[in-house]
């Protein structure tokens, strides 16, 4: 307890200078905001290094090794390089929009961290009761920055990248929002802290109830962040660098920061909604129940960060495993698979909740513990729900497989049929040979 004394000590010191309202609603939130911003920027710097290292290890290379031991100071060197580069603005660019776009990207990515519950109690800045809606609404503002950047650059590559990214983000936004509804049916709230509380009160992860929802959310989240294998807006081989082709120096680094911060946001929401957030078994019993409140918060914070880094490793892992999708395949997955699957998921989760409620009291079975603070199920209820979740996964797959069977691969089958019908006469040249003179 002695180690965490400074938090209470600082609180008492602040109360000597300010009123209780000022301390609770101005000073502490300010400290939280500063901490979170430094945490996220620190993550961006670390991610730069980690991504290069992970990619190197997956390709049996070493990665950055020269700056500091094992190249650990490489992000600092990169940062200094970016800050000292020329801030280039193309001729005939729309200067104001060109200036503003990166700031919109960074702001949209960073504002979301207001509602992300890093831990219980003081580890969340603001627990909005519309938390999840806020996340979806603000993070989709990020696409505006990409469109503005692409449009104002006065470059064909930038414009094409921006158009691609807007089309992609709009298609995947729908599936992302719809996939969360299934989990919300169990939590019965939009506040992210309450979603975690619903899971810790029931001591289960919603991943078990909602395997399909988690898969859809993860895929559409990766697509939303324009990460590989969905990185068509910045496809190097086709579009140079996509929407930030014309950006350099500090403004480019802002886009970079926004991309990695958006990664953290999507991972944080995935962890909160599906992986139990900061909840871990025995942590509450070993710390809070014995009176170590601050220790409880800090251990929960670490649990959250560990889960978060698991999802972020998955990002790197997928990036260096899968090749990029073709554009029609991207739209195919978005519109033919993910959106119908998320709609079916809403239906199947509603049906499964109905089934569990109907089973309560049938032949003496007890499935529902209570309905306060989300849906609390007994052991039997959990088992039934997990089975129903897996069944929903299978049913959705079979249904969509049947529906999309004819239209797979951009209707390649009908194309092949057309090719078969073409009958080129063989042995006869298309252009008759001209008799040579003399």
């Amino acid at each position: 307890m002695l180690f965490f004394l400074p938090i209470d000590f600082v609180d008492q010191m602040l109360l000597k200078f300010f009123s209780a309202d000022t301390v609770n609603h101005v000073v502490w939130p300010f400290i939280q905001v500063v901490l979170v911003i430094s945490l996220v920027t620190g993550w961006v710097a670390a991610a730069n290094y980690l991504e290069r290292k992970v990619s190197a290890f997956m390709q049996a290379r070493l990665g950055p090794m020269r700056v500091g031991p094992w190249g650990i100071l490489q992000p600092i060197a990169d940062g200094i390089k970016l800050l000292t580069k020329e801030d280039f603005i193309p001729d005939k660019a729309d200067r104001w929009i060109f200036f503003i776009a990166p700031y919109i990207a960074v702001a949209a990515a960073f504002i979301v961290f207001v509602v992300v519950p890093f831990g219980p109690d003081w580890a969340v800045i603001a627990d909005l009761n519309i938390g999840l809606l806020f996340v979806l609404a603000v993070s989709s503002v990020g696409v505006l920055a990409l469109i503005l950047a692409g449009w104002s650059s006065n470059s064909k590559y930038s414009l094409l990248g921006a158009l691609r990214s807007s089309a992609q983000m709009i298609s995947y936004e729908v599936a992302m929002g719809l996939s969360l509804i299934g989990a919300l049916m169990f939590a019965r709230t939009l506040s992210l802290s309450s979603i975690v509380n619903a899971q810790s009160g029931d001591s289960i992860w919603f991943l078990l109830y909602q395997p399909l929802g988690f898969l859809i959310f993860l895929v559409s989240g990766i697509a939303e962040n324009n990460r590989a294998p969905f990185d068509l807006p910045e496809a190097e081989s086709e579009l140079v660098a996509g929407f930030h082709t014309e950006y350099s120096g500090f403004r480019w680094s802002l886009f970079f920061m926004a991309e990695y911060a958006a990664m953290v946001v999507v991972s944080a929401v995935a962890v909160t909604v599906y992986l139990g957030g900061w909840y871990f078994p025995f942590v509450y019993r070993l710390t809070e129940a014995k009176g170590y409140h601050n220790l409880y918060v800090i251990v929960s914070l670490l649990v959250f960060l560990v889960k978060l880094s698991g999802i972020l490793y998955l990002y790197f892992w997928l990036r260096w495993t899968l090749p990029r999708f073709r554009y029609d395949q991207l739209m195919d997955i978005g519109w033919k698979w993910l959106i119908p699957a998320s709609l079916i998921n809403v239906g199947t989760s509603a049906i499964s909740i109905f089934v569990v409620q109907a089973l309560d009291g049938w032949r003496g079975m007890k499935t529902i513990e209570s309905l306060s603070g989300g849906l609390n199920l007994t052991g039997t209820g959990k088992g039934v729900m997990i089975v129903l979740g897996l069944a929903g996964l299978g049913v959705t797959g079979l249904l969509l497989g049947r529906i999309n069977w004819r239209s797979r691969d951009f209707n390649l089958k009908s194309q092949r049929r057309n090719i078969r019908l073409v009958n080129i006469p063989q042995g006869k040249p298309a252009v008759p040979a001209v008799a040579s003179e003399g």
Partner: protein
Amino acid sequence: MPLVKVPKPKFIEKVQRFFMVDLLRGLRLTLKYNIGALTGSDPVAGKGIYTEQYPKVRPDVAPRFHGAPRLNMDPETHDTLCIACNLCAIACPEDCIDVIPLDIEIMVAGKPRKKKVLDEFIFDTSRCMFCALCQEACPTYCLELTQDFELATYSRAGFVWNREMLEQGRETVKYTR
């Protein structure tokens, strides 16, 4: 007449596609490489990382690699082993060796005799193809192609090595880890 032959997928292929087995296989492969790099073990070659950190760590060249030439000296007297026989210059297909002898008078059993000794040895590494025929021809194992491979210089004249460079070796920057 079909121009494109489309094989019908078997049932097992359909199932594999449905469960994304290939994706999981790819993920397993990259994870295996990642873990192999961290633990320093690889199922293929027994090491996880294949990168050589060249200036700091010298690479292992092949045992039969031929590099920079060297004139060996007698380890006891530190006289050159070269007898200026010119065999290496004759053996050289590129004519990149010039042996310049010097006639000196010595007394052998009280009688003055002439002896040919080495005065200067010119080796043009820019024309050398490192075939090591000179090394084969040398009767006293004096001329030898070592495994040193850093032969780059700033000028054409730097490629021409004289006797001192051949005997002492060229000075290069040594990096440490």
